[in-house]
């Protein structure tokens, strides 16, 4: 299991959620100063607690106590194999309860389909 948190100092948005496989896509598009686009995809999402606009993003696994507390807020889903991802930025803290996470960085335009959703 990866120990280092995922971290980007750039602006992300909640870009897309689809019920199929319960997928949540966070995206940081290219800007005048950033030449790449970053997508972060969560799969098998059970719960989301995030602002829709996030400056800076750090994703790491919750410790066991925090995970237990948040797992109880997953609504009708059972936690199952899912994990609790804590997501922090410059002025927020939230979480996503999901089965897996993957990120991709490319040079595609902001509105091009994500390779993670194909």
């Amino acid at each position, binding site marked *: 299991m*990866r120990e280092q948190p995922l971290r980007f100092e750039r602006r992300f948005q909640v870009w897309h959620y689809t019920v199929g*496989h319960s997928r949540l896509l966070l995206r940081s598009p290219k800007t005048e100063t950033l030449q790449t686009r970053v997508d972060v995809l969560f*799969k098998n999402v059970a719960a989301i607690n995030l602002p829709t606009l996030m400056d800076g993003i750090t994703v790491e696994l919750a410790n066991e106590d925090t995970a237990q507390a948040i797992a109880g807020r997953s609504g009708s889903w059972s936690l199952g*194999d899912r994990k609790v991802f804590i997501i922090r930025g410059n002025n927020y803290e939230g979480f996503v309860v999901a089965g897996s*996470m993957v990120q991709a960085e490319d040079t595609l335009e902001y509105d091009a389909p994500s*390779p993670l959703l194909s």
Partner: protein
Amino acid sequence: MLGQAAPAIKYDILSFLPRNLAWAAGGLAFEAGLGKLASALFARASTAAAADHIVLGLAASGLEETAGRVGGRTLLNDVNWKSTLQAAIADPGTKITVSLDGLSGTSTWSKVMGAAQKGLASGASPTNWELGQLYQAGRLSSVEFVEGGRVVANPFR
């Protein structure tokens, strides 16, 4: 890399897949070009094991519970779910169970074919796509269908 024409893409997977997948224990990071190379890497990483048992269906209709009952695993956590399913379809040793719970239709046949037909169109939902793949590959006859926790007759045999 495929070359300069292909946009670079960097994957950094922090996946927490079902515990019965041996390769899920570690983080996986790799860099590849979009296209065939990435697909090949995905396929290699997620090739179904010989005794694998994959359970498909709608998550919100109790799919994970169904998978637990029949002793299989879902692809809900699998970031490479498409290639995993295609490998499973190609492997006759992989058992595939489809949960009909929540699918539209009045019979097993209509539920499956309704979804499969939609699944062969572009932009299909994951479950429809999965059933479309089973149909297209002629694999439906070897699928076990379950509904309401019970095995139901397979009309494709």
